[in-house]
């Protein structure tokens, strides 16, 4: 069974541009989580989608947004990129919204903002 996949693996953008990151969950998983891991920090919760709806978001500005498609894949969009947005972005999926549903992580997208 295929795991969580993310694309692209690496993304280089310049300040002010927009970045789009993609995530495909494990088949049958309806929940998708997005995290940011900046240098020296733990994973920071960004967004949680379940069944196509945004269920919760972390303490990030509105220029971080996303969506979940009917096939449960997800996109993270970052507008008006700033240098400090450079980070590893991890996506995770789980079977549903339950507390004890294990999250399975993808390998991440490394975003570099120049």
């Amino acid at each position, binding site marked *: 069974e295929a795991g*969580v996949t993310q694309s692209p693996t690496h993304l280089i953008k310049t300040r002010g541009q927009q970045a789009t990151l993609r995530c495909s969950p494990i088949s049958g998983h309806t*929940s998708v*989580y997005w995290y940011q891991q900046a240098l020296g920090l733990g994973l920071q919760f960004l967004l*949680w989608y379940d069944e196509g709806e945004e269920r919760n978001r972390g303490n990030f500005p509105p220029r971080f947004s996303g969506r979940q498609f009917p096939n449960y894949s997800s996109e993270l969009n970052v507008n008006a990129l700033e240098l400090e947005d450079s980070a590893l972005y991890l996506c995770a999926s789980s079977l549903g*919204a339950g*507390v004890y549903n294990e999250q399975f992580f*993808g390998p991440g997208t490394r975003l570099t903002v120049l």
Partner: protein
Amino acid sequence: DQQVKQNSPSLSVQEGRISILNCDYTNSMFDYFLWYKKYPAEGPTFLISISSIKDKNEDGRFTVFLNKSAKHLSLHIVPSQPGDSAVYFCAARRPGNQFYFGTGTSLTVIP
């Protein structure tokens, strides 16, 4: 702000001995705690978890202890094996499925 803290960036242990990884948290709203293991170039993988209503959970060589009064979580690995060498993240959940992660502890098990 970092609500989950792992103050030891690295730990080295001899094969066969106990590895103890520590984690502190600040938010009393956390109701579920997890440990993840991460190898280079891969995403974290779930290892073990504990609900806030328990103080211990065991799974084979891995045991997680929760001290709610001290807001402290620890992972014990006994006996440690070279394949356990990885970065370990502790995580905590707030209602609404907001998960907070520590910065990780890099464990090296020396053969």
